[in-house]
Every structure is written in C-alpha cells, then in structure tokens.
C-alpha cells in the first residue's frame, strides 16, 4: 500500500502518471470536477428537452426528432439520475473535497492515494455505463430516478425497461462502490492526517461538511447497493423480492409475493441521506465564503458543527416522509413526520448563523460571495416548503405534484449548485493560478439567480393547484390545461437560464489559460490552502509541515496588524 509520503517523495513523471492515473488528490479533484461539468451539461440538455416538450408536445426538434411520451419519461429518469449522482454527489465532495480536504487540514495527500485514483476511475466507468443506456435497444429507462418497483422490475412494463434499466442499475451499483471507496478515504484522512495544532474544532467548516458527508455516504450507499442487487435479481433471475403477482397488459408475470414497499424503504433509507450528501458541502462552502467576504468570524462555529452533525444524524431517521402516501402504516407516518420537523431545526440554526455572520461585517461583493448569498436565499426558499411536505395531512394534497419538484429543485438543483459555483469562483485562483473574470461572474450570477427563481418558484403554485408530476404533457386533464401559461413562462425562463450558463463555461476555460495571474491569497482568506503557493506544489506545502495556532475564521481580530489572522500565524493570546 503506497503511503502519502513515499508517493510525494518523487513527483510522477510522464503524462499518464501525471494526468491520467495520477495519485495526486489535486489532479483527482480536478478530474472529478470536469466529470461533473460534463454530466451537468448532459443533465441540463435533457431538462431543456423536457421543458420544450411540455409546452410543444408535437414539436420535432433538430438532432433529437420527435419526443414521444416514453421518451419524455426517459429524459426525466436520466436527468434525475445523472444530476443527483454525477453532479451533486461528485463535484462538491469528489471535486472540491478531494482537492482541498488534505490541504485545509495540513496534509500532503489523502490517506490512501491509490484508492482515491480508483474511486475516480470507477465513478467515470459508472458514468459511461449510464450514458450507454441511451444507446441500447429500447433506450434509457422510464421509471424515474427513484425507480419504484414493479415498474422498474418488469421489462414489459414499458419501453426502455429492458437492457436500459439493467444498465441504469449497474451504473448506480458501480457509483455506490466508487463512493464507498471515497468515503473511506475522506474519513480516515480527516481523523488521522491533521497537522499539528489542527484540532477537530479548528477545522474549517468545509472540512467538517466533507467529513460528515463521507460518514453519511459510508452508511447509506451500501443500502442502495443491496437494493440494486435485489432489483437486478428480480429482473433477471426470476426472484420476487419486490414484485407480487401482477398482470401487465393481460399477461401474468412470473413473480409472486414480493413487496413494492420494500424497494421504497431500502431506496429511501439511502435516498434521504443522499440529499443531505448533496447539500452539506454547499453549506460548508457557504460558511467559508460568507465568513471570508464579510471579514468576520463565522457566527457560532460550534453551533454550526453541531447543526451539521444533527442534520447528518437525523437524516437517517426521516426516510419515511417520502412514503406517506405509499400504503405505509399511518402510525409510522406520524413518527417520521415528527422526526422530519426536528431536522428543520438545525437547518434554521445554520440560516440564522449565516445572517449573523454578515451582520455588522464589511461585505466584499466578489463573485464567490454573491453565490454564497444566493445560496442562503435559495436555502430559505427551498427549505420552507419542507414543513408543508413534512406534515402527512398536507402531503395528501402535495405529494407527487410540482410542489415537491419545486422544493427539491430549489434546494438541490439550485442551492447546492450555487454552492458549487461559489466553490469554483473562490478556489479557482488556487487551483489554476489565475483569476476568473469578475464582470462575467457577476453577470452569470444575476442571470442565474433571477432565472432559477423564475423557473422553480412557480412550481409551488402549480403543485397547490394539483399539477401532478412526471406527466409528459398536460393535454388530458382539464384542470391542468388551465395551468399551461405558467408552464410556458417556466420554459422560457429555463431557456434563458440555460443559455446563461455558457457565460460560466466561457469564463472558466478562458480564465484557465488567459486569466490574470493570481497571487497566493487573493481573497485574504485564513485557511491553510491560502498559506501555500498558487497552485500548490506536489506535496501541498513545499516540504514544510504546517503548524496551526488559530481557528479557521479569525477575521477582524482587534489589535491585529491586519484584518485577518491565518491559521498558521504565530500563536498569540487569542482565545483559540
């Protein structure tokens, strides 16, 4: 087993060892980042096709042709799966976590660099497998990213449910294994490789978020793996874990006695921690950026840590709130409902603390800060629709409507993405040695904030009016036809917002090669990555092991020579 130091004693030579099968967590982090960037454009393209089809069902589009109802459902399934797994579970954790966790704790690399390399390439294989589902006979599956059985277990239940569905399950299983490898690495690194003086309570909140996310992943992905194996067995080996005796189109299927609810329990036991995996790193980045650009310590560091720990802990106890209408016992529903309301409390605490951080600060409006502020706004908007859905009696009306779609898109599809944008604009100088273009960044921010609100806020109105989700068109139900003008508005908003993302891509690639050179600490930030060169050398700190004397957010310390004290600055009589 290679050890970090022996790896870094000799930096690798040769293109393959340096850029393809690199063991350097920084290269691997960038590989994850670009994988997620590719995935997000695929996912966005799918959603663009979906929005266009909803308004113009008969349209024949260039390249894609006509979109049939089953095609719409395949687009929907793949959009959800690709975005949740290959974007939201990849960029924040695999991308930025991989790059900056070791540096922020003062380590030369991850605990297990070979495992790190393997986890990236396994994720990559998973991505190839899921894209392959588009190109096989029958096409991509149509059962939604949640894959409820029996629909996902019966090849005859719909087009796309043959080989495409098997590839979908295989891709997710491969992704599970990759994530488990990554989680193992993150946890060991955080517990074992911290530099001297870097106590747990001096770790930046980004590190805490990656650590807690890794624990969630470690405990949740194994359950998804089991669920997927059972589904593959039902589909291919004639078992009946999930499928009772059913008749599809007059044909009796060869299953008996299985339970569709079993899939839901297993899936959501994973699925709920998964959504916290998607948002926690964004919360960490928001805390980091808000503190840096307000020039103030984070308000209530300990409370923030405990809040993230509670969110992680409670996250394992609330999965039943996805199943209030499923036929589950109403008594269980009551229990899950109370626990779900409990999880709203730490989320609220974090929001108060973010506001408290900016209060009486001196806010600098660089692009990363704009995205962090946007994150707070979106987290509030997306979070407050939660208490509606958490009450089973209200969920009766709102479950499986656009209200839910609006809720999770604001939180995952926008707030978490804003966390990724904030991280990108914030750490780009350190990663690539150049600054991104500020005016373009600001333009991108304003268009995206306004645009995403325009797309997703109306979904709440639609949901209250009874617009059911996963409908490929709204032509059949009279009361839904009346809601078309709002849907049309959302489609136009989506077209404009998606177009605005090209500003980001152009900015990203142009700045990588032609942006103005960055200094080592352009944001005057305090955490360890800003103490080292830009970009960092192979072993992160140029042969010197950092020693930490301060907490992570010592801004505006009275009597200090400048308005920030870096974590490695000499010890003083400050209370940290």
């Amino acid at each position: 087993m290679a050890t970090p130091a022996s790896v870094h004693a000799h930096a690798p030579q040769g293109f393959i060892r340096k850029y393809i099968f690199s063991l350097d967590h920084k290269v691997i982090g960038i590989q994850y980042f670009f994988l997620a960037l590719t995935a997000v454009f695929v996912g966005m393209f799918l959603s663009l096709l979906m929005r266009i089809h909803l308004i113009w069902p008969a349209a024949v589009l260039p390249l894609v042709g006509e979109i049939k109802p089953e095609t719409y459902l395949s687009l929907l399934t793949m959009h959800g799966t690709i975005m949740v797994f290959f974007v939201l579970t990849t960029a924040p954790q695999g991308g930025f976590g991989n790059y900056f966790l070791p540096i922020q704790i003062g380590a030369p690399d991850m605990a297990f660099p070979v495992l790190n390399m393997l986890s990236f390439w396994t994720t990559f294989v998973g991505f190839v497998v899921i894209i392959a589902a588009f190109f096989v006979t029958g096409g991509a599956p149509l059962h939604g990213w949640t894959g409820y059985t029996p629909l996902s277990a019966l090849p005859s239940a719909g087009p796309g449910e043959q080989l495409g569905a098997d590839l979908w399950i295989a891709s997710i299983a491969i992704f599970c294994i990759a994530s488990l490898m990554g989680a193992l690495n993150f946890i060991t690194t955080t517990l074992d490789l911290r530099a001297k003086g870097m106590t747990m309570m001096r770790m930046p909140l980004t590190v805490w978020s990656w650590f807690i996310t890794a624990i969630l992943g470690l405990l949740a992905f194994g359950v998804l793996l089991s669920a997927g194996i059972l589904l593959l067995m039902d589909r291919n080996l004639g078992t009946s874990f999930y499928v009772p005796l059913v008749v599809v189109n007059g044909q009796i299927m060869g299953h008996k006695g299985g339970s569709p609810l079993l899939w839901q329990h297993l899936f959501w036991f994973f699925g709920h921690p998964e959504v916290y995996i998607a948002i926690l790193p964004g919360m960490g980045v928001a805390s980091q950026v808000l503190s840096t650009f307000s020039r103030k310590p984070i308000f209530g560091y300990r409370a923030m840590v405990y809040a993230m720990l509670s969110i992680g802990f409670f996250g394992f106890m609330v999965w039943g709130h996805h199943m209030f209408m499923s036929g589950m016992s109403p008594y269980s529903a009551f229990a899950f409902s109370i626990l779900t309301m409990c999880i709203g409390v730490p989320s609220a605490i974090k929001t108060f603390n973010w506001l408290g951080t900016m209060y009486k600060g001196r806010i600098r409006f660089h692009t990363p800060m704009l995205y962090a502020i946007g994150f707070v706004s979106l987290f509030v908007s997306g979070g407050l629709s939660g208490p509606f859905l958490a009450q089973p009696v209200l969920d009766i009306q709102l479950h499986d409507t656009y209200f839910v779609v609006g809720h999770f898109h604001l939180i995952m599809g926008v707030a978490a993405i804003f966390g990724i944008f904030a991280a990108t604009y914030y750490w780009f100088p350190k990663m690539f040695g150049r600054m991104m273009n500020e005016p373009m960044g600001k333009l991108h921010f304003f268009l995206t904030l306004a645009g995403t609100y325009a797309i997703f806020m109306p979904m709440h109105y639609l949901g209250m009016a009874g617009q059911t989700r996963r409908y490929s068109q709204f032509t059949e139900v009279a009361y839904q036809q009346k809601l078309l003008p709002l849907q049309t508005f959302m489609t136009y908003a989506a077209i404009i917002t998606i177009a605005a993302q090209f500003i980001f891509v152009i900015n990203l690639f142009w700045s990588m090669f032609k942006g103005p050179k960055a200094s080592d600490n352009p944001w005057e930030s305090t955490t360890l990555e800003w103490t080292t060169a830009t970009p960092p050398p192979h072993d992160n700190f140029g042969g010197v092991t950092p020693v930490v004397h301060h907490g992570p957010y010592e801004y505006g310390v009275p009597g200090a020579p400048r308005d920030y004290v870096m974590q490695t600055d000499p010890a003083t009589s400050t209370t940290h």
Partner: protein
Amino acid sequence: MGLALLVLIWLITLASTYFFVAKTWWLPVGASSAAGWIDHQFALTFVIMGIVFVAAQLSLGYIVWKYRDRPSRAPVEYSHGNTTLEVVWTILTAVLFIGLNLMGSSVWASQRFDAAEAGAVQVEVTGMQFAWYFRYPGPDGKYGATSPKLMDPSAGGEAAVGLNPSDPAAKDDVVTGTMFLPVNRDVDVSLRAVDVIHSFFVPSLRFKQDTVPGLNIHMHFKPTAIGEYEIACAELCGLGHYKMHGMVHVVSQDDFDKWIAAREAEKQ
C-alpha cells in the same frame, strides 16, 4: 452591488409572495368533509412559513446592503457568536415546527386511524395501465373473487379486473369506468393495483392514496358537494401516466340509487 442584491432579493420575495397571497393559482375548492380541516392546517402552515420566508429574505437583502464594505464603515464586530441567542432561536424554531406538526397530526389521525362510518358506500378502485375501474359490490355487500388468470384489459369492465363469474358473490358486482358517489355519505374505498403502483388522486376531495400491487388498502372520505371531479394518477406508472385520467361524479342519493339500479339492470 449591495443595492443590486437587495433590490433583486426583495423583488423576488415580494413578487412570489404576491402570487401566494393573491391565490392566483391555488388549491381547488374543497368538496369533502376533510377539506375544512386540511385547508385550515394548510392555511396555518402557509401563514407561518410565509412570515418566516418574507422576514428571512428581506433581512438577507437588507443586511447585505447595510453592511457592504465602504471606507466609512466601522471595523467589524469581532464575535464568535452569542450562545444565548443560539439557544433562544433553537428553542423557538423547535417549538414552532414541532407544534405545527402536532396540530396537523390530529387531522391525520381522524383521517387515517379511524375506520369508515357504518353504512358507508363501498367501492373498490382498481388502477391498471392506464385506466381506473370502479367496482360496487351490489346488494349482497360482498366483493366477488377476482383472478389474475381472468384479467383481460382489452375487454374492459369486469374482464379488466378479472372478475370470476362463477363466484356467486360476483354476480351482482358492477364494474364501471366512471365513479359515482352519493353526496354526504362516507365512502369506504378499497384501493388495488394490477400491474405497477398507481395513485388515486382527486384534488377537490383532498384525497390521495397510492394503489400498490399486492395490497388492498382501505381508506374513507366523505364528499360534501355535488359535482364532477377529475382523477389524476399521481404515481409514475409508465408511458400513459399522463393520460390515466378519470372522473368522480358526486350526485344526490336518489340519483346514485337510480344509477346503480341501471347498471345492475344492464348486467341482465
């Protein structure tokens, strides 16, 4: 920049709130006995969350503008937080959220923990790709046996649900594609599905329940207004999910009796 942020955040907040308050798009008029309670709980949640939403977003916009960095600004207040404040707002939030939830639970309990009233109308709702069928047990009050071997969706009606004609209890079962119900009488509904999960959702009646293969789920509700209400399938069930549409006709008891008698007569 701070001002631009404030303007944008406030604009978004006020515009969204306007449409919520104006109820431009809103819950359909409730037509069941549960609607009163459910809508009341909804309104309560709505007002509370609305106040929090507006307060949080407006404060965010304000703080971001007020504390922008300017040469004339005072040095920052160096502080790691305020434990008293943390405790206070944690307790307040917990009381608010959990209290709201407990209030809603009594409504949930009355809906789901209790059985249907005596003398309720019995209807079995069966979902299949991509249609709803409704079965009334007839004068004997018993549902006849069904068998998967006898299911033939292309023949519609009794054949679609696989009714076994040799079962004596099946002889008076009425199977239709449209649901008729008498007003102001509890309905004891048995929900089934034949192939994949569907969901029986009637927005106006504030009723939704997934229909799951392998389960026979009993629920009850009471329509309180005569009218025609649309059913929309609310669980992804395949390519025809968007057109798995049905109608509930709530009529007077007399009209219902006439309708049932006519259906029984057709069977002879």
